[in-house]
């Protein structure tokens, strides 16, 4: 690992000032991606700004209509929250399937969505639920947040504070995990809301995306049978040693079906 200076601000204002003073700095959340990246010398930030010194960024608030999760809340905290299990069991199941227990004890929702790994789980929930990402300066709609592979709408120096997820009528998440890393080869988040059904796919393409054809069919009939005849073209999907684009296209239909069943059963 290249050397760097370390800061642990006690407020967002202090963190923002540090970022302004150190343009080559990186924010450190749970570190589950950043620290392995630094160890491989794939990044060389001048400074790390550790966000763990702000208790305001940690916590879960649940109302009938919305779940608010602080950016520094760990995957384990989401997975084991009784309120989330009651209101949005698909999100608890999603969080419980990330990485391994030790990763879930450190990794955070804010870090995951800011990193925007194409195979991460949380982006599918943010897009699939139409969540809102609250930063130190504005609110960003989930539909606008993920822009490309490892790219988001966040501006330089912008810090995610909270994710606000509307509570749907029903939701499900299913993924075909890479057997070694547990990253999603394909993951599908399906949400039935008062405004219709939303389907978001992660792992299959450079960035998370929605499937309008399946959404329309599922809005008419929320059953696995409703999507049986809908195929997804492989043209823009990822192909790698783990799965070809054609296989990912096939897996999308299978995972959406499983996510629907989860939603129907919970």
């Amino acid at each position, binding site marked *: *690992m*290249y*050397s*760097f*200076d*370390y800061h*642990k601000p006690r407020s967002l204002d202090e963190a923002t000032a540090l970022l302004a003073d150190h343009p080559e700095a990186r924010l*450190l959340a749970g*570190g*589950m991606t950043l*620290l*392995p990246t*630094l*160890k491989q010398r794939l990044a060389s930030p*001048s400074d*790390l700004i*550790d966000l*763990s010194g702000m208790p305001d960024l940690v916590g879960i608030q649940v109302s009938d209509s919305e779940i608010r999760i602080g950016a520094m809340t760990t995957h*384990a905290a989401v997975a084991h929250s009784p309120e989330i299990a009651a209101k949005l069991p698909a999100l608890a199941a999603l969080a419980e399937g990330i*990485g*391994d*227990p*030790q*990763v879930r*004890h*450190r990794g955070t929702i804010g870090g995951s969505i800011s990193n925007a790994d194409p195979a991460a789980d949380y982006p599918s929930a943010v897009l699939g639920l139409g969540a809102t990402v609250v930063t130190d300066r504005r609110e960003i709609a989930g539909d606008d947040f993920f822009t490309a592979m490892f790219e988001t709408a966040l501006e330089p120096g912008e810090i995610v504070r909270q994710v606000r997820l509307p509570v749907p009528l029903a939701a499900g998440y299913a993924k075909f995990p890479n057997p*070694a*890393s*547990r990253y999603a080869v394909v993951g599908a988040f399906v949400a039935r809301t008062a405004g219709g059904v939303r389907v978001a796919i992660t792992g299959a393409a450079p960035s998370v995306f929605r499937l309008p054809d399946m959404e329309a069919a599922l809005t008419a009939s929320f059953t696995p049978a409703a999507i049986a005849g809908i195929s997804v073209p492989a043209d823009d999907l990822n192909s790698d040693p783990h799965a070809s684009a054609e296989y990912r296209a096939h897996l999308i239909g299978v995972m959406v079906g499983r996510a629907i069943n989860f939603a129907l059963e919970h």
Partner: protein
Amino acid sequence: MSGTVPVALSVNGRKVASEVEPRTLLVTYLREHLGLTGTHVGCDTSQCGACVVHLDGRSVKSCTLLAVQADGHEVTTIEGLGSPENLHPMQIAFNEHHGLQCGFCTPGMIMSAVDFASRHPDPTPLEVREWLEGNICRCTGYHNIVASVEAGARAMAKA
């Protein structure tokens, strides 16, 4: 850039304070600064779990944590679990059920298992296997490891 920064934490109940480079990993600090070599470095890429320790009672991979991130916190390593004369119930279970072959992964397996067992007093084999996702035994001695964790969890619940 980068001198050293102070860290002060509790390791196995003992307060320690040092000056470290910010890039010092917790596992490096434990092994090379404190001489606690029971915590192993296996893959060094957060996959294998040989480096698992407890941070405030929760299992974490100490190869993917900076020592400065543990500042002000409590760390427990395999050395803090029991002693040769007075083994922890999970260590006894690994001994009785032969939950090891070469033994390299064992410290991480036991630290992960103790965290698991503290919240799963009567686990099923499937629950144990799912929990051990983050711990790799390259001798593939999983069958006896799972039996050890099941027995250790029940022993901990009785203790």
